[in-house]
């Protein structure tokens, strides 16, 4: 059978912004047979998307396809003129972008956007097109009424499926999916992945699936192509790559997904008084009304009781909108709390950071998610790291420099980096600088707000390792905010699971990972992508009765999505945080036995 796509000797050149051109794709060959799903995987900057887009004869602004052959169905794509390319795109080969939120046109109703490829290519119009849209909407499990709405009125998971419907409209021979689930929460990711698989299988389309996540790809792809630095490292059937990788780079990638010693087998050191204690903390988004901020409105944090011991790592896990970042900001004094009390080593902390004494401020430091944004672009690394020394210790210039060298060395950067600007560092290096800045204050507690999520898997693993190492060397405590249960398991002594601003489960890491789980924790665990085949189907089964994303305003916030919800009770009453074994508590109306029973069903909860 003739392959749908044949790329041979592809070279792509990019403008480096300084007037010269560099090769970003070097001599790549790629073949996709009819109906085959090929995954392109690698870190960001590996050139996956560039290769995938080349299949559509497209190079992003600032890049050029300079060499190689791209044959689509035997037709030379590079030789096509503008009209020829238009005929190819959207009809024979279509594209699903990473962020549907950005890739859907905000000014055009959803139905019209899905129908557009049909109209452009003159395939169907009027009732015929409507029928086609209706069938796609059914296939992808979207609500019927959605066609008349605008993209911003759909949820993130729906938006991604809308884009998929749009790409499927003309029943293309090849589908290019560019990180289609990367921007989504794990539980949403399952729905979308499932929809993608259904769509591809149902239509018999071939597909190129671009992803950085090996586990996700393992569920969908027939073949995996591993890329790095613009070249192919290794390729082969999925099972072979996952089970018998040949190249060391592939092994690193797999290791990053498959965590080693997950549980830290050590008891949380418990002093008499905890280092940080939150009691009944409530917070809401400030809404700017005509007459000052509106009160109450939508609460992001409800009655949070948490403690962090001296030298302890408490992880707070939740999906977007759970309020986990607000929690860190409230502790840091950057976000006001409506009520409740926060104490550092027994002393109550003022609401706003500026009202806290210098010594308290020094003892709590924060590291932000994106090191690209958290370092002042106009300051040199030396100044950035030196500032806390100057501010908190009033340290003289010469001393500061010595400290800076030591701190840089501590986070694994050479002293010469002192003279550099953040723009001259890589993402991982920048995060190291941010970490050094936090440690410069010699704090007792570091708030880590999603510090890994903007980094590539391999880099993230290195930074995580660095954090663990630094932890071992000092008595610092972390409040580790993350959306990723598996990552957190590698560093946390205790875990708090947050949903809609409410703590649903709290306990030592090992306890949280042993059944019974809170139904939401169970869902989160199942939703973490696993390399094993069949994970997706299992996870899909465990997903709640509806794909509803909104938290319930009263009762158990998880009730609308809970597969175990008790009608008449759960929507009315908020269950208490029920302590079962010492230090492990679950907020659920179901008894431990009921939960355990539900969770020992065929679905495996351990990622290994």
């Amino acid at each position, binding site marked *: 059978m003739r392959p749908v796509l044949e790329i041979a000797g592809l070279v792509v050149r990019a403008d480096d912004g300084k007037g010269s051109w560099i090769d970003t794709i070097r001599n790549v060959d790629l073949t996709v047979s009819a109906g085959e799903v090929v995954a392109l995987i690698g870190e960001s900057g590996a050139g996956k998307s560039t290769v995938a887009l080349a299949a559509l004869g497209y190079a992003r602004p600032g890049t050029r396809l300079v060499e190689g052959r791209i044959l689509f169905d035997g037709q030379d794509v590079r030789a096509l003129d503008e009209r020829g390319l238009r005929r190819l795109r959207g009809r024979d080969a279509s594209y699903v972008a990473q962020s549907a939120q950005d890739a859907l046109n905000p000014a055009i109703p959803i139905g019209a956007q899905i129908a557009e490829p049909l109209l452009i290519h003159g395939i169907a119009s009027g009732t015929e097109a409507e029928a086609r849209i209706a069938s796609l909407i059914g296939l992808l499990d979207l609500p019927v009424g959605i066609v008349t709405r605008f993209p911003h009125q759909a949820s993130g998971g729906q938006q991604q499926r809308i884009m998929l419907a749009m790409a499927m409209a003309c029943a293309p021979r090849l589908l290019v999916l560019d990180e289609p689930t990367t921007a989504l929460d794990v539980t949403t990711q399952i729905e979308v992945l499932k929809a993608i698989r259904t769509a591809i299988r149902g239509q018999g389309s071939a597909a190129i699936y671009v992803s950085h996540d090996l586990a996700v790809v393992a569920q969908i792809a027939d073949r995996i192509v591993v890329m790095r630095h613009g070249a192919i490292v290794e390729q082969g059937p999925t099972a072979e790559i996952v089970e018998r990788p040949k190249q060391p780079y592939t092994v690193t990638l797999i290791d990053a997904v498959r965590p080693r010693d997950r549980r830290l087998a050590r008891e949380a050191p418990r002093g008499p008084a905890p280092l940080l204690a939150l009691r009944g903390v409530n917070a809401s988004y400030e809404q*700017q009304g*005509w007459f000052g901020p509106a009160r109450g409105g939508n609460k992001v944090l409800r009655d949070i009781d948490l403690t962090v011991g001296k030298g302890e790592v408490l992880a707070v896990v939740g999906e977007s909108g759970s309020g986990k970042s607000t929690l860190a900001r409230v502790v840091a004094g950057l976000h006001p709390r409506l009520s409740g009390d926060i104490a550092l080593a027994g002393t109550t902390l003022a609401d706003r*950071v500026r009202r806290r004494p210098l010594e308290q401020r020094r003892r709590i430091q*924060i590291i*932000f998610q*994106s090191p690209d944004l958290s370092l*002042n672009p106009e300051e040199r690394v030396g100044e950035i790291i030196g500032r806390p020394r100057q*501010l908190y210790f009033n340290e003289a210039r010469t001393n500061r420099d010595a400290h800076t060298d030591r701190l840089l060395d501590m986070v694994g950067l050479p002293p010469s980096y002192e003279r550099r600007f953040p*723009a001259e560092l890589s*993402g991982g290096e920048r995060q190291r600088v941010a970490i050094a800045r936090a440690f410069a204050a010699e704090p007792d507690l570091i708030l880590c707000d999603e510090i890994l999520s903007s980094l590539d898997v391999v880099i993230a693993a290195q930074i995580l390792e660095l954090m663990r190492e630094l932890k071992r060397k000092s008595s610092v405590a972390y409040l580790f905010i993350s959306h990723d249960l598996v990552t957190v398991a590698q560093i946390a002594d205790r875990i708090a699971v947050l949903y809609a601003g409410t703590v649903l489960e709290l306990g030592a890491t090992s306890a949280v990972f042993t059944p019974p789980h809170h139904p939401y924790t169970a869902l989160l665990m199942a939703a973490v992508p696993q390399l094993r085949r069949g994970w997706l189907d299992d996870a899909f089964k465990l997903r709640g009765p509806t794909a509803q994303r909104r938290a319930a305003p009263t009762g158990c916030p998880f009730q609308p999505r809970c597969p175990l919800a008790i009608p008449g009770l759960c929507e009315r009453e908020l269950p208490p945080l029920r302590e079962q074994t010492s230090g492990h508590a679950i907020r659920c109306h179901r008894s431990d036995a009921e939960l355990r029973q539900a969770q020992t069903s065929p679905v495996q909860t351990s990622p290994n």
Partner: protein
Amino acid sequence: MSAGEATAQAIPRPRRLPPPLACIGLAIVAIGLIMALLGPFLARHGAGELISERPFPAASWALPFGGDHLGRDVLSRLLHAAPVTIGLALGATTVGFVIGLTVGFFTAEVRGRTDTMITWILDILVSFPPKLIALIAIAGLGSSLPILIATLGFVHAPRVARVARAVAMNISAMDFVEAARARGESVLAVMVREIWPSARRPMAVEFGLRVTFSILVLSSLSFLGLGVQPPMTDWGSMVRENMSGIFLGTPAALIPALAIGILTVGINLVIDWIGGSSGRRLTEELSR
């Protein structure tokens, strides 16, 4: 999405030579400043000195740009008027800019109710047509240098404040500013150390735009006879004096008008260059 792509987001620092258009602009601005500082000393004749008996004597070696309606040397008058036009524009802009910048940065950092209220007031002040406000003020208060400067400053201040607020808000939403706040830096330190370095370039663009605007409005006012009053002269009033010559085909009115035009074009060329590297281009910002 990180390392590789992220580097590209970083603010570029222009190190190379400015492009040709920007060089032209810089040259024009430099000449303008020299004229403003030294103009009267470079002039061959006094501002009121009558060179010719007839009105509008033709251009010659002695009178490179010809003479005006009273037979005075246009070039000399141009040089004498330069400090008035440019100095007045710079003065008025500086007044408006300093006030606007302070208010804008302040509101951006305090947020909350104060911010809402000040923004509201700014919205109102900005919705007046600037040139008309100047006209009305001058109609009422009469025309003198302090009043011209105050009026223009009043026109500029709320506009600058809005821009400054927007720029500062954008920067202060960034995590590195948040990090500084979390460290417990004072409001002043946050503004000076964190926000200002990144706001420098966009605000320089704003200053340039405001100077251009000042020159244009002041010249228009003088052209209408409502700006700088005799015996003092600026380029706008030179245009006015010599308008009658236009119908005779003499360039006496054209010369000062061209001087104004070239100066504003020069400033715009520089702005476009600075703006281009700060992501804030002239076109997005120019509001009259």
